[in-house]
């Protein structure tokens, strides 16, 4: 059975999760990909926050503590009433954020990162040290995921472009699988290792 998680998520809840667990996530989360991660590192983590970005910093500090970042470049429609709506919102490949994610988890106390394809050791170590998980969304399930986005509450840094902006969205029962947990285990590493043994046997046959 799937575990229900609601943002903000506590460290205790995260520590109970293990690789292979299915999760239904609810609450307010933020999309962020390449430009968003570089922005957070340059302005808040490595650099001193310029006055112009202080408001954004306060917002992110509050939203990401116990929060979740989703690697997604959505297809978005602006409705007649001026509000936005997600049309298709599947995950994008996460490995591009590997250089940044560990620092973002530590700095903002992020509890979950959602994406596709998994990440590497630097992120895995940060998950273990700070109590976070990597959640794998179902690639290609764009309609279903868009349906689980109940409301687009706001958008920040839209000047990065639609796919790259921080979209503040309220999700309900967003389906994912824990593929990197806070105990140092990675389902990606496990499957790679096990499939390699089978592959080597098949080559010998």
């Amino acid at each position: 059975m799937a575990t229900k998680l609601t943002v903000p998520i506590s460290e205790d809840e995260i520590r109970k999760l293990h690789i292979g667990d299915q999760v239904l996530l609810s609450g307010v989360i933020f999309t962020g990909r390449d430009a968003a991660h570089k922005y957070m590192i340059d302005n808040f983590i490595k650099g001193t926050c310029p006055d112009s970005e202080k408001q954004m910093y306060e917002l992110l500090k509050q939203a990401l503590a116990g929060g979740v970042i989703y690697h997604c470049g959505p297809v978005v429609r602006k409705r007649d009433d001026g509000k936005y709506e997600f049309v298709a919102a599947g995950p994008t490949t996460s490995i591009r954020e590997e250089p940044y994610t560990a620092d973002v988890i530590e700095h903002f106390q992020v509890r979950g990162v959602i994406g596709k394809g998994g990440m590497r050791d630097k992120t895995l170590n940060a998950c273990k040290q700070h109590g976070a998980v990597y959640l794998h969304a179902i690639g290609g399930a764009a309609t279903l995921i868009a349906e689980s986005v109940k409301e687009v509450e706001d958008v920040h840094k839209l000047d990065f472009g639609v796919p790259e902006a921080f979209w503040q969205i309220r999700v309900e029962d967003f389906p994912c699988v824990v593929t990197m947990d806070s105990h140092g285990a990675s389902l990606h590493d496990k499957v790679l290792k096990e499939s390699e043994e089978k592959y080597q046997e098949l080559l010998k046959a």
Partner: protein
Amino acid sequence: MQDITPHLVELVKSTSTDLSPDVEQALADACRAEAPNSAAAGALQTILENVKMSRETGRPICQDTGTPIFYFWIPEGLSQRKLIEQTKEALRIATKEAYLRPNAVAALSGKNSGDNTGTDFPTIHFHEWDQDYIRVGLVLKGGGSENCGCQYSIPSTEFAASRDIKGVRKAILDAAFKAQGFGCAPGILGVGIGGDRATSTIKAKEQLFRPLTDTNPDPELDKLEKQLHQEINGMGIGPMGFGGKTTVLGVKMAELHRLPASFFVSIAYMCWADRRKFMTIRNGNVEIAPPK
């Protein structure tokens, strides 16, 4: 000449939003085979629900609506130039109606054309045939799976692949292992054996049009297709790479003549959202159907 633009729009819409029954059936069978409550079963349930939802709401199955690859079979005398114009116009309309994401970007600048047309975009193959009607095939091939495609030149010392059917098998096993779940498994492998670097890849992609349950006319290749289907699933990579019993829904291959000096094995990886349809236009009757 008849303007078939509106029919081409319908073909795009059907291909993008309505998965063919053979693929849906294979996904449903795969779902039943996985352990109940496993991550693999959960992924397949989500996929099946998404397929149903897309069909009902008329929305794209996946936000990556991919490269549109068209195949035309046309009677003698029909203008290819006009058909290319009509195909491009159909893509502009389908993009505006949100059946396609704007997916054509200039290679170096990254600038998006906004309407799925551009230099050699979409891909269109023409074949003249002796029938008196038009047949159009369309594949929408997503980028994540396209990135998992590859080409081998055998013999290979890396995995001791010889220049024979045994070597071909090893190359395909290697491709499937390296792809892991990254191409949105469970996928379909189209394989071209022989040819040159270009024709081999084209042949590999053509295999994606075959119904999953068909039989290869070459008994030796048919046997290898079925064997590889089982062997690759035995690697346990599973849906999305979560681990599980189904890593591929099928392996389909075809042979081409090659130069004595070259032996290519080209592999086209298609994601589970295996979007392909055929349309026939005959005496004003238009039929859109899955491969059969």
